[in-house]
């Protein structure tokens, strides 16, 4: 019966076919009852069919089968000798049969609806379970990925700390430099997290990292086309910008009232593969002298960006102002236009 129910819930039989099939079945039952089974009350033989029809085809079909069965059953026992075709008890029995089978058809149809609801609930439960399992799997992957990235960031922080301590003259200056570098890393992380740690918009990164140093737009003029950095390069770029801005604020164009920095970039397509040309130019600051030794800052700015961007990175201590230039292939540097 379950299979019939399953089948009927999954398939739709057109109403005409359904009612023709029920009519034929009722007539066949009537014939069988008349020809072969004379020992039972005429109506009892129809009850299984009515229940089956109501279960498989629903309420309307069940009620129709009840009425049709009552008519056919009455027909099989009718007699022309009776003035109203049936005797009084036969009329009473037929009416009772009709009432009982209508109730049975109704109940069977309700049972069918309950089965359909149960089936839906089971399917929904299975779907929910599947979704839950999928979500748990994704959560696990996400946690692993988060842990992986966190440990990589910790390794970067560990290196920044070690380099800072290694190159510091004293502990207070190491403390100051380290705090500022960690803030810069934190700012870069804010931009990266906004894009699921996959990439970072160059302008957003510049704004986030340089805003604490000077007003963007007046003391630091920024212009260039939309560009997206990959996560590894973005972190190094942020640290390099921080070092450039710190140096400018201490000794360069941001150390007086009149100097400013121009940070510009463009995409050059003339030599085959598109290339990024980025320029940090300090203007109007005090005369610049080359440092006597290379510290974390210049290493970060030059060597590190050269490595991350797989191109050229050149730091020039020109007397009129520090100049830093990056030239790299967009694709090799993991950058995307837009």
């Amino acid at each position, binding site marked *: 019966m379950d299979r019939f129910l399953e089948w009927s819930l999954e398939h739709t039989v057109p109403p005409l076919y359904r009612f023709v099939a029920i009519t034929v079945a009722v007539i066949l039952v009537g014939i069988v009852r008349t020809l072969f089974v004379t020992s039972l009350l005429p109506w009892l033989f129809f009850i299984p069919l009515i229940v089956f029809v109501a279960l498989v085809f629903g309420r309307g079909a069940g009620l129709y089968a009840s009425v049709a069965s009552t008519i056919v059953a009455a027909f099989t026992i009718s007699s022309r000798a009776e003035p109203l075709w049936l005797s009084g008890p036969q009329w009473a029995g037929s009416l009772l049969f009709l009432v009982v089978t209508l109730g049975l058809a109704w109940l069977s149809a309700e049972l069918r609806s309950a089965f359909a609801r149960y089936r839906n609930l089971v399917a929904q439960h299975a779907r929910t379970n599947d979704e839950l399992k999928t979500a748990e799997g994704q959560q696990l992957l996400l946690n*692993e990925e988060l*842990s*992986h*990235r*966190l*440990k*990589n960031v*910790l*390794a*970067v*922080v*560990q*290196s*920044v700390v*070690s*380099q800072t301590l*290694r190159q510091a003259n004293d502990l207070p200056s190491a403390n100051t430099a380290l705090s500022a570098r960690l803030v810069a890393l934190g700012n870069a992380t804010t931009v990266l997290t906004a894009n699921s740690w996959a990439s970072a918009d160059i302008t957003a990164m510049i704004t986030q990292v340089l805003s604490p140093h000077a007003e963007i737009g007046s003391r630091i003029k920024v212009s260039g086309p939309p560009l997206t950095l990959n996560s*590894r390069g973005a*972190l*190094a770029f942020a*640290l390099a910008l921080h070092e450039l801005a710190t140096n400018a604020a201490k000794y360069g164009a941001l150390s007086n009232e009149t100097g400013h920095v121009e940070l510009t970039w463009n995409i050059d397509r003339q030599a085959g593969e598109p290339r990024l040309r980025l320029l940090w130019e300090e203007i109007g600051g005090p005369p610049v002298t080359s440092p006597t030794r290379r510290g974390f800052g210049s*290493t*970060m700015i030059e*060597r*590190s960006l050269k*490595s*991350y961007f*797989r191109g050229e990175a050149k730091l020039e201590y020109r007397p009129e102002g520090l100049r830093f230039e990056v030239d790299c292939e967009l694709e090799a540097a*993991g950058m995307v236009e837009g």
Partner: protein
Amino acid sequence: MGQSKPINTHNILLVEDEAIIRFELADFFSDAGYEVFEAGDADEAIAILERETSIRVVLTDIQLPGSMDGLKLAHYVRDRYPPTVLLVTSGAAHIASEALPLNTRFITKPFDPARLLQQIDQMTR
């Protein structure tokens, strides 16, 4: 392959795409008396290994850009240069031991460089 040099237990190749980490490791090993070679990906590492035949220790990150990740590089090094002391590092908490080449140490990031140095000393003895 380049001109053959005697293998020096104090020659190390660092393969790490995070330049910030690589520079610090390079400084650390230099201070510890190692001659350090640096590569940002597997292709660079292979080129250095072919040129510098005296390298005895290779420390590689698993996640590397380019044609080959750190695990593939480790297998390549083990096959091509069997006596090399191999250390593989990653931010992942663990890695299936069967994924690593024989006699390879896995180290989770971040790691203590001094302890790493001890492990390398033990492995090169």
